[in-house]
């Protein structure tokens, strides 16, 4: 089968330009409404629960999940489904433990919550380091993915693609702040969900709308083995460790946590996670059909021929069932997906730099509104330039592990401190600092010593640390360190303010 992938398709470019046009119009509209830091960081708390649910889904469903999981299922069958479920199960945890108290206790970043009753400077510095580490690793993975994807799909040079993504994303965040970023996420989520749904319908139409017939066709062509657990999970502890990082990492991703400040109250925060879980779960169910659909209708050899990792399975499937026009639409959707995720990441990194580090550490909370807004925009430019630079630096490198690393840091550095600060009276500044520092360092160190880096990236024959993802060790380690350090260096002042935290976590700031 010859594919139009890699050739510059006028349909893809038309869809793509339409998306850029609409989102830049949104940015222009949002820019006129962005006058204060509350607008810039939190969209003036004016987003509804339903809208934020879509935006959360948009922030979370990266090209890695759309193209990556569909590709993984198409090449390895059942094993790919482990990821489909793993990426979703963190969301209920966000709802039960984090969303509402976070909304009630903080303003712009999750460090607001951790630092609430602690000494501001040490806690803010550590939280900003955890945030920036998560954001930078996630950004590298997204930028390199963007460069490769656009080169594969549109035939554009890698560097040009990286610069284009960086510049458009910067326009969204710099001028439109959180208002523009939110609406870009919503547009992207609607496009991605409807595109994936349409593709699923076209696939199922070939099998009499019976998924079991699709599974039969897959088994008929590649053997029943594609429908059962296979070689990918050779070490069960690997799967458990990755599962733990995905589960608690979702609850520690700074760009996700930041979204809860865009809604007016805790009730809307609750509703937004409920909708987000619905949308994201629906999307991952579709990846079951897309993956097996590509396996049968495109065929594994054709998928491998275009990209060995299988990343082009979904676009190839779109071409097989919907022709070149549909391929163009799906390609534009994939591009929109990357742009939106990168924008959300950059905004959360900028908030850590300006709100946590500049305003609360350097200026001791005494910065004026205009100064804060100016610093936030400068931080955005710095991060945007850094994203482009890193994207070009890591060209051709195997960066797939960096998403796992970002989740591992989020799960080990951000989540334990956030959780303990809200639920444990005895948690102290020393505990928070120790937990976040040990969480970040152990996650980075163990992933460096793991087969993911030692074997896959450095091509060594073995690794010191056996697990591909360090979550199994680093999450409990961060909890333990935070607990021990709090017991050794207790903080009576922080304990005495716990009642206030408890009250505000439940009732919100309104009645204070």
């Amino acid at each position, binding site marked *: 089968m010859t594919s139009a992938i890699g050739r510059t398709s006028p349909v893809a470019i038309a869809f793509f330009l339409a998306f850029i046009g609409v989102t830049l119009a949104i940015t222009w509209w949002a820019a006129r409404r962005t006058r204060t830091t509350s607008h810039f960081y939190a969209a003036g708390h004016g987003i509804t629960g339903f809208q934020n649910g879509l935006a959360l889904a948009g922030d979370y469903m990266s090209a890695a999940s759309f193209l990556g999981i569909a590709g993984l299922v198409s090449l390895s069958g*059942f094993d790919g*489904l*482990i990821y*489909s*479920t*793993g990426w*979703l*199960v963190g*969301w*209920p*945890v966000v*709802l*039960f*433990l984090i969303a*509402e108290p976070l909304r009630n206790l903080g303003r712009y970043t999750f460090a607001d919550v951790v630092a609430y009753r602690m000494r501001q400077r040490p806690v803010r510095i550590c939280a900003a380091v955890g945030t920036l580490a998560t954001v930078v690793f996630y950004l590298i993975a997204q930028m390199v993915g963007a460069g490769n994807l656009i080169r594969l799909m549109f035939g554009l040079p890698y560097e040009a693609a990286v610069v284009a993504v960086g510049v458009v994303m910067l326009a969204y965040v710099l001028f439109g702040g959180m208002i523009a970023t939110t609406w870009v996420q919503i547009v992207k989520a609607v496009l991605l969900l409807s595109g994936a749904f349409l593709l699923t319908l076209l696939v199922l139409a070939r099998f009499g709308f019976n*998924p*079991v*017939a699709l*599974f*039969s066709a*897959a*088994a008929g062509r590649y053997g*029943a083995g594609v*429908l*059962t*657990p296979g070689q990918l*999970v050779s070490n*069960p502890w690997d*799967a*458990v460790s990755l*599962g733990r990082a995905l*589960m608690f990492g979702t609850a520690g991703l700074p760009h996700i946590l930041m979204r809860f400040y865009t809604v007016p109250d805790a*009730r809307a925060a*609750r*509703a937004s*996670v*409920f909708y987000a*879980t*619905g949308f994201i*779960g629906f999307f*991952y*169910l579709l990846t*079951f059909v897309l993956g097996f659909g590509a396996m049968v209708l495109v065929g594994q050899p054709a998928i491998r021929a275009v990209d060995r990792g299988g990343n082009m399975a979904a676009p190839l499937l779109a071409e097989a069932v919907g022709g070149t026009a549909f391929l163009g639409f799906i390609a534009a959707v994939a591009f929109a997906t990357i742009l939106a995720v990168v924008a959300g990441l950059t905004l959360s990194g900028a908030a850590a730099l300006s709100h946590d580090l500049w305003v609360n550490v350097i200026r001791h909370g005494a910065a004026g509104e205009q100064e804060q807004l100016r610093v936030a925009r400068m931080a955005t430019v710095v991060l945007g330039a850094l994203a482009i630079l890193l994207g070009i630096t890591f060209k051709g490198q195997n960066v797939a592990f960096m998403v796992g690393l970002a989740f591992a840091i989020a799960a080990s550095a951000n989540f334990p401190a956030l959780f303990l600060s809200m*639920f444990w009276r005895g948690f102290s500044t020393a505990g928070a600092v120790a937990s976040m520092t040990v969480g970040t360092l152990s996650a980075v160190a163990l992933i460096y010593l793991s087969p993911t880096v030692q074997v896959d990236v450095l091509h060594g024959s073995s690794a010191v640390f056996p697990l591909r993802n360090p979550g199994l060790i680093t999450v409990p380690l961060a909890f333990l360190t935070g607990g021990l350090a709090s017991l050794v260096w207790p903080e009576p002042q922080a304990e005495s303010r716990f*009642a206030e935290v*408890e*009250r505000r*976590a*439940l*009732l919100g700031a*309104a*009645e204070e």
Partner: protein
Amino acid sequence: MPNTEIGRLAARRWRVALGLTAAMLAVYFGFILLVAFAKPLMGSPVAGHLTLGILLGVLVIVAAWLLTWIYVRWANRHYDAAVRDLSGPAS
């Protein structure tokens, strides 16, 4: 602590939240452990070529929906009312 109205409500929300979190953990890690240690069982057919493993994978997603729905229903009905009672007369 549970000697105030706020403390009691916090403890109640805490119990519900931790219980549901434990349920989600059990469902997901149960699925992962079956995938890792009971491969033949997961490959057994349920209906035609639909294997138990694929069915359980779908059910993990359905379980996540169900648990969030249970929480939202509880919070909208009982928790919000309790919060209103606490903040209403005082303010």
